[in-house]
């Protein structure tokens, strides 16, 4: 399938996402330049990690105003699949495509390490290749990954199954010392209400090769591929990545 990885000034993991998708997973992946508005017919947009615009104002606060983001918002509102990783997650929150916000880690310092996340809802386009409750080992590397949202919003998100990934220990148990950044409810990744936009702090693109320490990140990308294939099969000739596979996700958490 066709993937587009947006390149903002200050994007850092854009090349890694292109490598993981194109070279490792054999996908058709291309860079999308922030000054363009053309999404080039891609079926999934990836907002990569990094420090867009230096993150000097607030993480993701400037990137949301770039020309490409107009098209990304339109694409998402039309049901297109968008995944934001790390800084991409921050941009999606700033662009109001996802609820909540990401603030400084409770340690107040940058953290780079492999962590465990539990799949909380496996019935979405971003997680359907994993089992419900499966623990994935993925790296994080961020200074501002503490997820916050108003209490009422959080409750509603949990009820709707929008929390897709939660930090746990290797056995899948929630523990304070397994929550690396102090995120509310140990949230590591969330989807929007229509399950076509997903933001996560862990980096699946840095976990696609055993030689570099793990392959669990493939499950996220494979989920997207599976859901797009399913949608295309259902709607022959469809070019957009729009899918409703996640809507049925009332599975309990």
């Amino acid at each position: 399938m066709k993937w587009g990885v947006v390149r903002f000034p200050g994007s850092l993991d854009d090349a890694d996402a292109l490598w993981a998708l194109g070279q490792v997973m054999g996908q058709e992946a291309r860079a999308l330049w922030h000054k363009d508005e053309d999404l080039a017919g891609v079926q999934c947009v990836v907002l990569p990690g990094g420090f867009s615009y230096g993150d000097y104002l607030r993480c993701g606060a400037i990137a949301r105003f770039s020309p490409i983001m107009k098209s990304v918002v339109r694409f998402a509102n039309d049901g297109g699949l968008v995944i934001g990783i790390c800084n991409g997650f921050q941009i999606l929150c700033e662009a109001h495509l996802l609820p909540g916000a990401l603030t400084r880690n409770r340690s107040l310092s940058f953290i780079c390490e492999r962590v465990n996340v539990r799949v909380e809802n496996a019935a979405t386009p971003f997680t359907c290749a994993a089992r419900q409750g499966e623990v994935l080992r993925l790296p994080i590397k961020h200074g501002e990954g503490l997820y916050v949202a108003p209490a009422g919003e959080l409750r509603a998100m949990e009820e709707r199954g929008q929390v897709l990934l939660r930090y746990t220990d290797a056995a899948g148990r929630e523990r304070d010392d397994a929550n690396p950044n102090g995120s509310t409810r140990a949230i590591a990744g969330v989807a929007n209400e229509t399950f076509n936009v997903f933001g996560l702090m862990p980096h699946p693109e840095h976990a696609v090769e055993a030689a570099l320490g793990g392959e669990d990140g493939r499950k996220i990308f494979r989920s997207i591929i599976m859901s797009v294939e399913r949608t295309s099969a259902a709607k022959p000739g469809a070019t957009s990545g729009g899918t409703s596979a996640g809507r049925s996700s009332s599975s309990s958490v």
Partner: protein
Amino acid sequence: MTATKTAETPVALAGEPAVGLEQARAHGLSEDEYRAVERWLGRTPTFTELGVFSVMWSEHCSYKSSRRHLRMLPNKGPRVVGGAGENAGALEVGDGWVAVFKIESHNHPSFVEPYQGAATGVGGILRDIFTMGARPVASMDSLKFGAFDHPRTRHLLGGVVGGIGGYGNCVGVPTVAGEVMFDAAFNGNILVNAFCLGLARRDELQSARAQGPGNPVMYVGSATGRDGIHGASLLASAEFDASSEAKRPTVQVGDPFTEKLLIEACLEAMRSGAIVAIQDMGAAGLTSSSSEMAARGGLGIELDLDRIPLREAGLTPYEILLSESQERMLLVAQRGREAELAAIFARWDLHAVVVGKITEDQRWRVRWRGALVADIPAGALADQAPVYDRPAREPSKAPPRISSRPATAPAPPPAEALRRLLDSPNVGSKRWVYRQYDSMVQSNTMAGPGGDAAVLRIKGTHRGLALKVDSNPRACALDPYVGAAACVVEAARNVACAGARPIGLTNCLNYGNPERPEIMWQFIRGVEGIRDAALALETPVVSGNVSFYNETEGRAIPPTPTIAMLGVLEDAGRRVTQFFKRPGDAIILLRTAAPALAASEYAALFGCGAGALAALDLKRERALIEGLVAAADLGLIGSAHDVAEGGLAVALAECCFNPDGVLGAEIDGMPGGSGAEVFFGEGASAVVLSAAAGELEKLRGLFGGIEFSVIGRVAGEPRLRVAKVIDEDVRELMQIHEQAIVRRLAANG
């Protein structure tokens, strides 16, 4: 502007101080140096010219005390491309790839302003690499702080680590390895040495040699401000004293976001073929980059300061020329292709402005508001600084042992000593430091921080690169020659433990005031040690940096040459890690000499048994390294770990700390007895291997002439048992090791 010779002479500007010997001294020039400036010009320099000479002839820029000694370092070899002299050295690593790497100090700025000092140290070394046409692919740092409980250490540690992470993480270059040491000898002068490795295709390497009179000179990147003026001359080339705090304005401020744009834009612009020469504006900024590029090409240059992008109005020519504002590059373009280059930079939202041109007449000429403000032979600035053969004298009394307290209490039993060593910040885990660094970006890191050497793959090939930075100020304090040679050998051994063949090194030579004969002696002995070890291992010295004046109020740091070694793995899949893998594997100890407690962490902690360093047998060191490379290549070993701080007992414990599952070790007995030096000595080059019992005979054959002892076996039960002396739960030891730094920071509040 005209390039023809003119009778015009630069004139003093309104409001400038008068120039004479006193003014020259205030700029750090000696009387002899000032007279030499007058001879070069045939007249009294203007204030602007005096400022320019003072930075270009500073120790930091001119290497005037070290240059004649650095010539003895071997810089030739079949893999060497170009060689030292431009911005960094380069080595062929196979399949058409060239590795460009260098290490550089940012000690004084980091002591005065730790966050920005360390951050701009990282930024500066990155520019040295990509200015060569290589994409920066990995960073390492060697850090030396004062005693952990010294009142300034916590602030400096947090600031330096924050600055390295803040810059490196934001610029997208992984920090893959490093070293951190705490010792009271650095209370008044910390060391921050930053290393960068870049990769380029052989035919993509860029030159910093101006060519083509008439070619335009373009300025790219951040605007010029008042920061960093005299960073090279007053901050880096003088000792510290009580007034050093007042030098904070000489520290630059970093902007990693602009640096990231510069990297991408410069690499793209280089591929266009429109760039003739390029150099970053590092120490001495616009002055050094312009005069050095011109001098290398045997040409001249004319700069028009009215075209320089300025951050604020009202900068004088003196300030513009001496500013060390960061994230700026100067390039010589092919005439007629300026617009093409400007368009590439504009795509990355960077300015590229024509600020001058290359001339034929070998003069470095600067205009401002229509007036000529400087007119100097380019070579006088770039490579005709005075060269000194400073007196060197071996100190008559034995050098003081650093941080080795007199024995006030009997040393604890081995098990207790092992726990205390694992709890030492010098031996304990540095995770608190390296988890603040992105070690994964760019998707090449096969082995990141926390092990012996880092290993990176080269995409599109089977090859891997191993890298490691090492220093040993305690050993160098005892013997500056043996200590320096041992650093080279240690770095090479670490790279070889990962299975890579060491192919070349870069060094950062941190010493005290070279005007003192005993410091000069330390320095020369250090260079000789590096020379001899580099020759023995056939690892050429491709680049380097000298940092003198590392002293505070007359107290010099111990001599600290820092060595960063690069190794190549033909097949990255054959890399080896330090951790035991399989219960039942034999544990082997390799040693080149008898162990001793000299310069050890044990001696520092328990204040006993120092003494002199044993001589190094470089032939045996080479044989050990060759054996390790062969063993990895043949797939005979499960693990290999260098015995370093804390000695053999600590190394054995570390081998058990496998993150994929903790293991144990049963050691039947230590060859050489059961004295503290056998358990905790660091003097000898020693390596702990593990291997299947069936491979032992083949393995032994690879290490002819080296002590090869099978000392025990890997155990599934996580206990470390050594003869009848140590019997410890590995998980407990791991916890102590893990908490060594963290618990101190928490306790410090």
